[in-house]
């Protein structure tokens, strides 16, 4: 009876405060984002590497971090709590490949700032009994503490990124990590390569500057049209091949992290290379071996391509195939442009319009545009 009475009294209090709640209802007055954990997993064969991010406030509720109980969590306190947190996470996150459990260990801790506050970032390594084809993920972080907590999973395998939401009633989910996704990775990176060359007007203008004079011959300080298709084709072939070899070489070196150049430098030099190639058409210095220009500057364009690839990231386990696909995409796009341009300039080469207007003024326009880029990239660019 006493218990009932007591509850009754408490609920009396609730009614009054409840009015408060009631008014909160109509409105949408809450905010802050709800509690989220960010789980990133990269699958490569039977290995999984990745990280887990949990808000520092949630770390306190899960394992306790505020040692001096002053309501503030310092870096020292978080570091001291790291072993406890590593154990907690290893108990509340688990992976299985084809239903066989993977071993999982968290090690190390860093802090990441997100829009809603500080997060503890912990990398992990997991090893599965066999190569992963079907990955089951179980996630019970904050279970019993905050049922509205969700684990936002980003899973990448063989170049395919999948996302999932775990927690609450759905603490488990499974993801297929198929071999065919290699083909999807190939297709995706091939498309990216084609797209980049076709939309990357700076690379195309460089190539065009080298192609314009390929249907002409320099004789006695004057441009003459080549007599037949064959020498024109040979000239174009040399230039395109040199450019391709050079940029493929540096693209590969940069993508595999063997050589690195600051992107502001490469972007600026790419702009400069266009100016040089275009001016060479107006005031010819190099007439016979444009392939050398194509090769030496091509090296820099390769670094430019690599920075695009760096933004996309090379998927674990499919690095080489994705790199190859990206490069093949670039070459295909480039070839399409050459095939489209070649008959036009070959057809126009004999007329004076081509030699007196297209060559000098076209090249001048290209040089002017590239000069604007050079200024933007070298001087105006910050950071």
């Amino acid at each position, binding site marked *: 009876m006493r218990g009932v009475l007591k*509850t009754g009294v408490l609920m009396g209090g609730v009614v009054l405060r409840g009015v408060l709640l009631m*008014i909160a209802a109509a409105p949408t007055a*809450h905010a802050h984002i709800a509690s*989220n954990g960010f789980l990133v997993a990269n699958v490569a064969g039977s290995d999984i590497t990745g990280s887990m991010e949990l808000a520092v406030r949630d770390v*306190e*509720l899960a394992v306790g971090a505020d040692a001096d109980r002053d309501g503030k*969590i310092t870096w020292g306190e978080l570091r001291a709590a790291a072993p406890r947190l590593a154990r907690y996470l290893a108990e509340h996150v688990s992976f299985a490949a084809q239903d066989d459990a993977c071993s999982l260990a968290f090690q190390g801790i860093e802090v990441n700032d997100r829009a809603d506050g500080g997060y503890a970032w912990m990398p992990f390594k997991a090893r599965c009994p066999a190569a992963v084809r079907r990955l089951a993920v179980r996630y019970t972080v*904050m279970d019993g*503490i905050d049922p509205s907590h969700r684990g936002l999973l980003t899973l990448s395998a063989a170049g395919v990124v999948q996302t999932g939401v775990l927690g609450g009633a759905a603490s488990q989910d499974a993801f297929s990590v198929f071999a065919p996704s290699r083909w999807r990775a190939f297709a995706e990176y091939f498309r990216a390569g084609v797209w980049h060359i076709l939309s990357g007007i700076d690379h195309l203008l460089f190539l065009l500057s080298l192609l314009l004079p390929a249907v002409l011959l320099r004789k006695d300080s004057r441009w003459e049209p080549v007599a037949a298709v064959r020498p024109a084709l040979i000239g174009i072939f040399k230039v395109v091949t040199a450019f391709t070899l050079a940029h493929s070489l540096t693209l590969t070196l940069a993508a595999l992290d063997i050589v690195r150049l600051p992107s502001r430098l490469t972007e600026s030099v790419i702009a400069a290379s266009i100016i040089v190639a275009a001016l060479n058409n107006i005031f010819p210095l190099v007439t016979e071996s444009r392939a050398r220009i194509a090769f030496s500057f091509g090296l820099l364009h390769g670094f430019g391509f690599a920075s695009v690839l760096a933004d996309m990231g090379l998927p674990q386990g499919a690095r080489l195939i994705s790199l190859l696909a990206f490069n093949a995409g670039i070459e295909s796009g480039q070839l399409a442009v050459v095939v489209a341009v070649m008959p036009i300039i070959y057809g126009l080469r004999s007329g004076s319009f081509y030699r007196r207007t297209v060559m000098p003024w076209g090249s001048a326009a290209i040089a002017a545009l590239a000069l604007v880029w050079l200024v933007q990239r070298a001087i105006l660019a910050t950071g």
Partner: protein
Amino acid sequence: MLAELPAGARHSSDPSRELAATRLDVALPLAQFDISRARTTGDLRFLGYAEAILAPWMHRTTVAPQVLILNATILQSRHAFDAALAELDQALEARPDDAQGWLTRATVLRVLGRYDEAMASCEHLARTADPAITSLCRQSLRGLTGHLKDAYAVIASLSPQDLVPEVRAWRYSELGEMAERLGNDPAAELWFRDGLHMAPADLYMRLACADLLLRHGRAVETLQLLQGYESMEPMLLRVAIAHRQLHDAASTQAEALLTNAFEVEQRRGDAVHRREQARFLLDVDQAPTAALAAALENWRVQREPDDILILLRAAHAAHQLQAAADALEFLKRSGLEDVRLDAYRSAT
């Protein structure tokens, strides 16, 4: 320092959590406390903590009505209105005299635009609750169903001295909103300002006041009003709109934070801030078609005057007023008076 624990957050070693699993007289006030923390700080995590405290009691074969009512409050705060109604009905069957239950039920039904049923809940309230609460419950509904002027006068005649602070704050925000709907913005601002003076932690009233100021292009005052509240998404939205009105570069940071927050909510499948998202798309992103889609999505879930307003504004901006035909029909049927909506009403 990496993080500051908000006031009211319990330490991991706090024994109350375990105690609450075995004693209802600990669990109820603790959950109640967390829910009011969520309300006054805008921190959604507190709803999760309250849910965790109630969870062991919700899993019993017979769930205590008080537990159901608190759980329904959490669901309602997450805009899971149908689930909240189901739990309230179950609780009120066991405890037909529970004033809190009827009040929460009236509120949910009001948000859903089911005014007749909401009024019936207010009538149940009359049997047990303070007459002032009953009066507010009734008049707020009459104010939405064709008796705005009269309801406004009745609520204004309630003497604030006779009301407990929570009810007094409700009176002020209700009067402010009613004055706005009547087209008396100067009076509305006074109600809101007086109310905030008395109850500065009333986030709902602060948002309503900010919206009133923004409607008049008073961006600088809006920023002053919301200073220190930027961590809350709906507040941050008003801050971003104010910066927009001022053509101020500071808006980009607020916009980036909001975009991020909406993305995370989308990934989680949360629906708490649908109305805000529609408003963000319309007033900040200036993407009327996307805003209309979000406002229609919101309209399917909740039907307050502000939900109708954002829908009509988005439909108008996207030149698709026929997309809001359902809302216009609702306006006609309910007799809802709101001068902010009149321009769109006559346009069709």
